[in-house]
């Protein structure tokens, strides 16, 4: 085999490897979505963020429209402040409400956006006013037990015949 052919084949091999790395970084990982101007930032305050994680999806009508990029605790109002990056293609009315929801019974939590009816749209760095916290299972069970106990207590007061 000529030296030139050999070099061409090795060059092809290296190129193939580079293409594989590029494919893995762009298609399998999230390098392409690093561009900053394709999203805009919104914040929402929740009394309880539950098990919400960074990078969890933001969905509206079940379609993923953005990501959660930051969750911090505000020690003035004792609330969780969630930063959402929403795709610039989608605009939401200013009175849109945000809820923390769960996919399936055991799935991950995400933020659901319910559009309102305002004529104005949410702008970058706006805050979503109406929010609904995550459902915490322990609180739910606690409430249920409490109401059961109250029910049981009232039943006992009835005269038994």
């Amino acid at each position, binding site marked *: 085999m000529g*030296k030139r052919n050999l070099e061409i084949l*090795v060059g092809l091999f*290296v190129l193939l490897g580079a293409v594989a*790395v590029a494919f893995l970084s762009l*298609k399998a990982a999230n390098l392409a979505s690093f561009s900053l101007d394709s999203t805009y930032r919104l914040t929402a305050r929740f009394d309880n963020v539950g098990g919400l994680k960074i990078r969890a999806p933001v969905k509206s009508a079940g379609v993923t429209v953005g990501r959660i990029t930051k969750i911090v605790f505000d020690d003035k109002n004792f609330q969780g402040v969630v930063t959402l990056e929403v795709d610039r293609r989608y605009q939401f009315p200013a009175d849109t409400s945000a809820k923390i929801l769960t996919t399936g019974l055991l799935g991950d939590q995400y933020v659901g956006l319910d559009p309102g009816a305002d004529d104005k749209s949410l702008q970058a760095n706006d805050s979503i006013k109406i929010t609904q916290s995550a459902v915490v299972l322990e609180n739910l069970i606690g409430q249920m037990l409490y109401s059961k106990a109250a029910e049981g207590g009232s039943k006992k007061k009835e005269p038994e015949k």
Partner: protein
Amino acid sequence: MSKVADLLAALGARVLRLLRSLGHASMFFWELVRFTPAALRRFDLTVVQIYGIGNLSLVIIVTSGAAVGGVLGLQAYYALDRYGAAEQVGLLVALSLLRELGPVLTALLFAGRAGTSLTAEIGLMKAGEQLAAMEMMAVDPRGRVLAPRFVAGIVSMPLLSAIFSAVGVAGAYVIGVKLIGIDAAAFWSQMQDGVDVFKDVGNGIVKTVVFGVAATFVALYTGYESEATPEGVAQATTRTVVFSSVAVLVLDFLLTSLMFSTKP
């Protein structure tokens, strides 16, 4: 009393032999590193070796990558579909390929495909006294023969592993999306959500470089230190596969615990 002394002597001799061979291997490694610039200066020698180690390994790497990715996708689908999370197949396949299976399986295949041929070649060169002849001509065989192979192994291994992982992801795509019918957009977006360029792709590449150094070094060392007989070369070839496989698995455990321990 003398029996105890005998036992102690046997133990001591063993430890000393182990230390001596470790020291010998470390010195050999240092020599290889020292000769690396020479291999880079005479890059045409290295290019020939990249062809032998890299290009000729492509068939087995691509075949295995496609098979592993496809099987992984299929099994992940069976397990995840029960929980209604079939879209996560892409994420599971990509993460396991990029973090563990790609580097490790490529390194094992590399040891079997390229490492053995390196060992056998150098062992036979030694048995045929070619290396001694080079020394006679004042050419250091470590610079002329070993270092280009060392560099070629380190260059080829990450490329092969990247190709393995990419083909594996493509295999999972074919099985998951084309045959089973998972939504293509969900397959890719779940993957992109969970895979980080630096943490997963980057650490995977770091792993493959380390494995490339380890597997190539073991192959060259066992070949260079093989007994200059047909049996000696055969034993050295076997030792290459065993040692480099164990080295790769141990290194993988260490690297994984260093790289991914802080991740939830």
